[in-house]
């Protein structure tokens, strides 16, 4: 093959590849815009709740944290008992990173007077591979707030470039978003953001969900990124006059107290109240309150919320 013909072929190859890329960009922008429109207008299900939290929630008391926050704190009961509007912003398998980004978005409207933060060590300061799930939720709000964008980049530096693709932002969520938009979500709706686990205790599941991550013999590995955002979250809340209370809700197994040393230290330094129910005798190994080893069921959630309200009042927090 002569040199001129070789050059011609490679030029033709690159030109076609470039044309294909151009068509792909057009497709990405148009389909992405369509999906943006759909996802931002969903009002039911998980996506609807996420939209409501980021776009509409204005509340005196916010509950934040992982699935233990989402499933354990009956926000309606708290609203009725405390006489303050209360909303549950907890999210399954997400911790401080999502809580920080949600507080930023809610803060664009107004900051709450009080935040109750459910502490889950693996999601808030220990190394545990769940950050990608938190990213999934944040991707849809990309471009709304510089601090959220940079948070995404710090979890994964390549996100800055991946986010150039509009379709990528809807990765994995697109199908459910389309179904929910056109047919409404088949899931049970949360009340003030709270959705308890239904059903009774499953002992087999509990036995095998034992919290090995808190095995102190293995030592605790702290995640510097989460710790940085834990502090930023508290800075953000306290600088806007939001009073923070840290809570650890009950666990069927009870919980190693050593793992809480990090939070105790932070609470002490920042003058924050810490209410630890994880080893409360009323709940430890009491099957009737649990759905599994980690999560309370609806009965347990209501009972725990009542106990929490009592404690908050007794300690003069409300």
């Amino acid at each position, binding site marked *: *093959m002569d*040199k001129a013909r*070789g*050059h011609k*072929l*490679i030029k*033709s*190859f690159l030109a076609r*590849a470039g044309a*294909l890329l151009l*068509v*792909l960009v057009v*497709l*990405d922008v148009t*389909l992405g815009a369509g999906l943006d429109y759909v996802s931002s207008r969903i009002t039911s299900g998980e996506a609807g709740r996420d939209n409501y939290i980021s776009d509409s929630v204005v509340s005196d008391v916010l509950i934040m944290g992982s699935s233990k926050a989402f499933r354990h704190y009956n926000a309606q009961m708290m609203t009725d008992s405390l006489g303050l509007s209360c909303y549950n912003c907890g999210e399954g398998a997400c911790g401080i990173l999502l809580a920080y980004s949600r507080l930023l978005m809610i803060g664009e409207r107004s900051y709450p007077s009080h935040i109750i933060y459910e502490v889950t060590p693996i999601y808030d300061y220990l190394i545990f591979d769940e950050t*990608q799930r938190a*990213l999934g939720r944040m991707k849809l709000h990309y471009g709304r707030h510089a601090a959220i964008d940079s948070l995404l980049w710090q979890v*994964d530096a*390549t996100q800055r*470039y*991946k986010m150039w*693709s509009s*379709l*990528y932002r*809807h*990765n*994995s*969520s*697109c*199908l*459910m978003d389309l*179904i929910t938009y056109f047919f409404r979500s088949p899931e049970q709706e949360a009340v003030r953001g709270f959705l308890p686990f239904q059903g009774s205790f499953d002992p*087999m*599941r509990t036995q*095998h*969900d034992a919290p090995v991550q808190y095995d102190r013999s293995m030592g605790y590995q702290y995640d510097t990124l989460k710790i940085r955002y834990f502090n930023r979250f508290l800075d953000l809340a306290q600088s806007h006059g939001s009073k923070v209370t840290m809570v650890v809700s009950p666990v069927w197994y009870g919980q190693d107290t050593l793992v809480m040393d990090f939070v105790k230290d932070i609470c002490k330094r920042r003058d924050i109240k810490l209410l630890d129910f994880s080893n409360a005798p009323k709940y430890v190994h009491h099957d009737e309150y649990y759905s599994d080893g980690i999560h309370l069921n609806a009965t347990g959630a209501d009972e725990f919320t009542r106990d929490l309200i009592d404690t908050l009042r007794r300690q003069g927090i409300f």
Partner: protein
Amino acid sequence: MLFNSFNFIIAFPLLFLLYYAIPARYGKCRNVFLLVVSYLLYMQWKPVYALVLLGVTLVTYATALLLKGSRRPKLTLTAGVVLSLLPLLLFKYFNFLNEALTGLLSMAGLHFHLQGLNWAIPVGISFFTLQALGYLWDVYYKRQEVERDFLTYALFVSFFPSIMSGPINKASLVIPQLKSLRPYFDYPKAVEGMKMLLWGMFMKVVVADRVAIYVDTVYSHYLNYTGMTNLVAIILHAIQIYADFAGYSLMALGVARVLGFDLTENFRRPFFATSVADLWRRWHISLFTWLRDYIYIPLGGSRCAPWRNYLNILITFVVSGIWHGANWTFVIWGAMLGVFMCIEKAIGWQRCTGGPWVRLCRICLTFGAFCAALVFFRLPTVVDACGVYSRIFDFSLPFSVYFDWVPNFPFTVIGITLLFLKDARDEFFPGRVPLMDSRHAIVRWGTYLSLVVMILLTGVLDSDQFIYNQF
């Protein structure tokens, strides 16, 4: 650097442009460039382990040179093989052998403890060691000329598309391509390579990584799930490992082809195999060709007494198991497949005769046998693997199956269906309904774009895992 990683997607066009910026007449310069790139990519993980790669390359290169004029070639070969195998034995099998030996001696009343090694295994060590050893044996058996040019040989061992996970190439296939004056740019080959990259990426991120979510969920707490759920996980695991490894191999072949090289085909629709023997002609072809040529045939192959032939089969499959990992589960996995193969041979089932229904039944049986053996491949201990088997026979909730409905279930179904349709078309109706190979540009481009959109919307793009990377 994994081919499905974001970094590779950025780096590859750059490599492509730089490679083709070197004029074809400077073939040697192109090889130097590829060698440097191969070592740089290898060093991305743990730079110091490039010394292991270099060591194996030097030992096999020198041994092959010495073999040429050696008076005692067998001794030279043995020395070369042992030296080349040392890093593999040390990094991959030391702890396993140590534990096995300690256990054996303690049973005899002798108690001693040798500290295990806590070193990471160099990426691709099993692949490049086998490739280099294959060359050495080929030189010994005079099937391959000694390669005197170190640059060419070093590139053959370290060629970046295949170093991490194969295919395990024969020197007779790759070295002539490295030495010949390649055309400046082979357009059809480059297009073919891009198609392979695209389909391989689809298999990996849309099918394998999505199915992995279900399989990992069930296998990590298999006792919590019903027998039917465990059964579904076993079947899905077979699909996962196929899509993962075949997809990744296809990407490796695609990358090489874009650069103008042909490497060994590694998978040929294995789940349409009608016998276990047929399956191994379609699954990880390069490894089983290697095992056939350098283990099975030197042991006597099938040209011996039947009992000896069965023993040869068993040994070959147990070696395959050990190659996959230093764990008794892999040994049992290999032995199970060896036993299946022996049974099949004994009852004369290796050739498929009969109509389409017989063929369908045999395809299902072969797939079932393969899935059953894969339980040992996946679970970390023999006890866990036996636990999964016993769980399958728990009929307390016979129709209860766990589904992770949204988003995994629909995406899994869509991915597996497309993969099945593509493989079924290639197997039974080759050349029919050509989509990526259509004469009409609109169909071709429509297919490419649909695949990219599906990858972006439904692929698991943040997974940085590849199953065969660990071997």
